[in-house]
């Protein structure tokens, strides 16, 4: 086949995962266009999170993987995690407890933003976007769950990622907060034109994306949601 080279897209080609010689996942083909949100669902242990780790480059060496991952046309395999520019959000916000809110955000600001002033400005903007202006000096531990989640997203976005991975980031929030934060995340992902891959257990999350839903642990091709937009497709080899 010809490799569909889509500007800015996250493309997985024939991805397979093995643990201790036992196939865990795949082979999987998937393309996520900029601004598109694809949902991965599947039972525990089906390798969803490992897939995300593989894309990030932080997969435990105990796993063996095959296939190709391209982001904006370039192969990710050769790059260490910190140079892939793939942002990830976990179930927990994972704000660094030893840093203030502003310091947490500043940790994400990439090195090419030079100068103290410029970096501080970036942080201030991010705080404003998260509706947390003036919270910069606070101890993250004193923030509410929703506030922390927003800081975590902002920290990820500040690093100027080229793709966004979401590892059940809504599951620990209560129902009311969940919908709001979900919208917040999706809006930002779309606004920044990020190809986004969401892993979740919650059908409501999948529904809210309005996009493709892939079910793992079953034949991926058969399970691709029928309403899939043309761009995201599960192609057979």
């Amino acid at each position: 086949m010809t490799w569909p080279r889509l500007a800015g897209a996250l493309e997985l080609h024939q991805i397979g995962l093995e643990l201790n010689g036992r196939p865990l996942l795949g082979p999987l083909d998937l393309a996520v266009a900029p601004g598109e949100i694809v949902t991965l669902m599947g039972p525990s242990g089906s390798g969803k999170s490992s897939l995300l780790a593989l894309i990030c480059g932080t997969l435990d060496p105990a796993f063996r993987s095959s296939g190709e991952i391209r982001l904006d046309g370039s192969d990710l395999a050769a790059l260490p995690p910190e140079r892939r520019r793939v942002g990830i959000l976990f179930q927990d916000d994972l704000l660094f407890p030893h840093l203030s809110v502003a310091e947490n955000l500043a940790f994400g600001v990439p090195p090419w933003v030079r100068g103290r002033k410029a970096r501080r400005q970036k942080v201030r903007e991010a705080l404003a976007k998260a509706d947390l202006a003036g919270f910069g000096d606070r101890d993250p531990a004193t923030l509410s769950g929703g506030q922390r989640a927003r800081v975590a997203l902002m920290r990820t976005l500040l690093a100027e990622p080229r793709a966004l991975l979401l590892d059940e980031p809504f599951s620990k929030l209560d129902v009311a907060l969940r919908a709001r934060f979900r919208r917040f995340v999706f809006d930002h992902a779309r606004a920044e034109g990020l190809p986004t891959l969401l892993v979740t257990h919650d059908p409501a999350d999948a529904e809210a994306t309005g996009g493709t839903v892939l079910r793992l642990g079953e034949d991926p091709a058969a399970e691709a949601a029928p309403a899939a937009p043309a761009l995201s497709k599960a192609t057979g080899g």
Partner: protein
Amino acid sequence: MADALQPLTLPGAAAPVRGRWLRAIPVATLLLFLGPIAAGLIGTWLPAFGYLPALGGESFGLGPWVELAAYPGLGSSLRLTLVSGLLASLASFALAVSFLATCYKTRAFFLLRRLLAPLLSMPHVALAIGLAFLIAPSGWLARLISPGLTGWERPLDLAIVQDPHGLALALGLALKELPFLLLMMLGAIGQTRADQRLAVARTLGYGPVMAWIKTVLPAIYPQIRLPVYAVIAYSLSVVDMAMILAPATPPPLAVLVFRWFHDPELSLRFLGAAGATLQLVLVAAAIGIWHLGERLAVRLGRRWLFAGGRGHSGPWLPRGVAALVSLCVGLSIAGMLGLAVWSFARRWRYPEALPSEWSLDNWLRQSDGLLWAGGTTLLVGLAAAGIALVLVLGCLENEKRHGLHPTGRILWLLYLPLLVPQVAFLFGAQVIAVRFGFDGGWAAVVWSHLLFVLPYVFLALAEPFRALDERYTRSALCLGARPGRVFWTVKLPMLLRPLLFALAVGFAVSVAQYLPTLFAGAGRFVTLTTEAVSLSTGGDRRVIAVYAFLQALLPLVAFSLALLIPAWLFRHRRDMKVIE
């Protein structure tokens, strides 16, 4: 072409290129570690069988062993070694287990947990000296109640310290080992979700003690096995504490061996080497016997577990055990207090409860010596603990980055310096060090301390390091931070508390070293410990107290700093506080 599958790849394949130096650390650490021990053992075994050309031993033979067997008092020396060593090991183990079984999560438990660091930091020499001052017939305890309560106008003529059976030594060892075993058990409990186990067992109708013994102990024992073996090895081969608390005619085997190695009569080196080898065999045999005991306990225990006894004990059991543990802790603390009082005494005769004349002279007159010995202690301790910390961090970080899962065998290697009696290899190591002109310098002393500091620093740090949520690292990496930056700005600050604690542990271990300082330092390195020991064989008690008290104070300060620095640095970071 595009269809071709990529060969199996590791996405992180780029990382090892940068981590090459990191990969060398575990190898270097093991070499640094096992090299001198292996060389030292061989350097001891050869003369044990008559081979040491430098001293005219050109051929192999059993001469040294024949001489050893004929040595007057060897029998009593062995008996003394075994009785005091095994008694101390058994008592401290039994007390630690029964305390946790009966008092887990009671007030006594929390209190003791808070006292653990200061108790651990107490060097065994200081503890032995303090204990001796306390329990001797003319000691502080007797002075407090005499002659009023006892009518003892003169002290009883009773061998309480340096008693022929080594009971005082056993007591001193048990006091020292109890906090260590408790700490190791607490660490193990943290990994076994003991609370849930207990809750389940309690809902099934088991009494608290029985629930602990039947569900928690079997789970933690595999993890405390090596620490228990280390306790046995140490108790059977201790030299410095034995010189203070054990009888001298004859002393325990390790002290005999130590004397032979330092005798002007050169031929005694062969005897010493044979004795050192016997010491090794003795320790190995004791550990072997304990191991057999374990298996027997497992076999009997299975049946007993299956029998389903619920074991509801009355309140007397926890109270009794708590009282016994309190007594141990009390003796240790009172011993330190006694040291403090003696160090400020001028005239203090039996049966006065407190000195009749006080003075600062002991401190002032010693100030030069104290500064010198204290400075050396501090420098060597900081260097050894610092190097150990760097090596341990390197090993752990390497393990994390390359997804390695260390096997039990590696852990055995790590414990080796704690399992092999010091006298069994230090002589051989010294001979080699002298040959290469490596003895008597800072490097040799720090290295010799490192052998014993490293395992403890590893023990203290491995658990918290491995327990740090891996996702923090992943988040930081995905935010574009290089592994180095992640290590320095995320991992280290988040682990500051355990890091400093491990440093303090390493420092305390270094401060306590006696034999390594003597052997590697060619006797030129005067530390608070070597001073305290050399004085304790007959110096002025007030001066001994000064050195021993300072020796105990240094690690205590280190532990306090390890606690205070992170607390102050992170005073505005709620999630960085320890959860009690």
